């Protein structure tokens, strides 16, 4: 069974249960073995001084270079962008190896409730790893692969894949429940 690595690549220390929470959701969604991996490096070259944000695309390249074989999800707390958008919650190589997700835009100012942020992080983690498994955005209401352009979109989604998306995952990925 293929392993998915969850790698904290943020600036501050991760919230205690965050990585475990992500790991459980990924295991349930993809029926895969998921490990929290403690790599030391950070994608320093992904910082864009002009935008004062981090390029998610450069982080993906760095993850592919830095992580051993298998799928890897980088979890961070820095603000991510792609050149054409003001920000992204995360990015993934569709059908590739790497995905990245950030808590920066999931925790809105004035909403310090950690549980809500953790739920959103878990959903977006499953979403980005879903792209790594080759899934595109899904129109089924509530499916975690629905596009998320705002936190409202994230909150509207449930944490799991719809039946159609589960069916599209190659053989090793089957939801356990």
């Amino acid at each position, binding site marked *: 069974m293929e392993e998915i690595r969850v790698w904290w690549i943020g600036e501050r220390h991760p919230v205690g249960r965050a990585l475990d929470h992500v790991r459980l959701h990924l295991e349930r969604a993809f029926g895969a073995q998921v490990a929290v991996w403690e790599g030391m490096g950070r994608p320093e070259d992904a910082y864009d001084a002009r935008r004062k944000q981090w390029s998610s695309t450069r982080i993906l390249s760095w993850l592919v270079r830095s992580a051993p074989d298998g799928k890897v999800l980088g979890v961070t707390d820095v603000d991510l962008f*792609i050149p*054409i958008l003001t920000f992204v919650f995360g990015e993934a190589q569709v059908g590739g190896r790497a995905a990245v997700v950030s808590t920066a835009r999931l925790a809105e100012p004035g909403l310090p409730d950690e549980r809500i942020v953790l739920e959103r992080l878990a959903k977006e983690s499953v979403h980005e790893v879903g*792209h790594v498994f080759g899934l595109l*955005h899904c129109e089924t209401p509530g499916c975690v692969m629905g596009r998320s352009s*705002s936190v409202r979109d994230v909150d509207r989604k449930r944490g799991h894949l719809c039946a159609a998306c589960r069916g599209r995952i190659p053989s090793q990925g089957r939801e356990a429940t």
Partner: protein
Amino acid sequence: MSGADTRVLVVDDEEIVRESLGGWLEKDGYPVSSAPDGPSAVERLKTERWNIILLDLKMPGMDGLQVLEEARRLQPDAAVIMMTAYATVDTAVKAMKLGATDYLVKPFDPEELTLLMQDVAAQQRLARDNVALRTELEQQHRFRDMVSKSPAMQRVFDLARLAAPSNSTILILGESGTGKEVMARAIHAESGRAAGPFVAVSCAALTETLLESELFGHEKGAFTGAVARRKGQFEAAHGGTLFLDEVGDVTPKLQLDLLRVLEDRRFHRVGGSELIEVDVRVIAATNRDLRAAVDGGSFREDLFYRLDVIALTLPPLRERKEDIPLLVEHFLERLGEPLKRRLEVSHEAMAALLAHDWPGNVRELRNALERGAVVAHGDVLGPADLGLAAAPGEAPSGPSTLDEVEKRHIAAVLAHSAGNVSQAARLLAIDRVTLYNKMKRYGLSRRGEDAGPSGT
């Protein structure tokens, strides 16, 4: 709604923009291609169809506005969204004036991009659906120049569509004015002979000798007055369609001649010995009951079967009154076009049109509307304009006497003139005294209403 049916072209000179925007849209399921500059974008516009074009305003060489103009010219149905790094209102306004659907300032807010793409894709889908629906409706209710939504006529259209491409002889039956020649022309236009001639001959209008010469032609000196060789209509229709109208009126001798031509497509000119061979498709029509004529012995049975290969029976208008509004719209569009007028009928006029029995069928309806378009003062035709002032139900069901017709006509003109007797007299081309006498005689008021038998 998945974006799979919406093809997107991203035009930007920056590779990183093309890649990141393309990647984002692909995850949304849009089939995305990109072009790095204006000329290559124009090339893609010439060769492929696009639904949405995301177009950078500032590019070296050919800029976004120039590409926009080309896009509007080459693919006016495609939606163009301008992308700009400089939020200058001027250029955005200019782009919108040139036909851009919207514009986005780089970098885009993800939600703004998502919503805009969804909106534009939905509009595009709706436009496509509308076109498809309109085409379908037109096809359903139309066979070339004929319009109808009545089930009986639909069956005729279906059969005509099937029969048109074949070379089979077609017999069109129907009362006069039901559109037999229009149907014949439509079949010709839908056939492989469309590029060839369509020749119509009315068999009832000519004597036997003249009709024979008209159909088959004659050699010089064939009969008195045949000063030169003349080709007949069978020859004129070579490679095309010959429409024999009123075929039920053909004399027994010519019936036999027609039978021979239909059997081997060969004939002699009148007074000639040369055998002439033609490639002609024959469409015959009649308002007579040919079967009864066969039974009564006035029409050859063998010719009847030669003609009756595929029979299309056009129902009279009174049996498909649901078509009247559709036909009215159709004819008014045609009548209004050269006059640059948008003609319509009033509610009262439509009620009168629907109540009328139309013994002259579609032709009578077209004539009534044509007359209305000429005499109406505005663009809305009233009952009087159509010559239908008599209240529904008042029209006698059988033939009218001359007096009845005169009374109805005077009443219609008086109603049209709204009590202005002088104007009515002018329209009727009689003097006022004569008109007053007739009004008295028919018991008509100044407004054309029945004033009672004694008159006023």
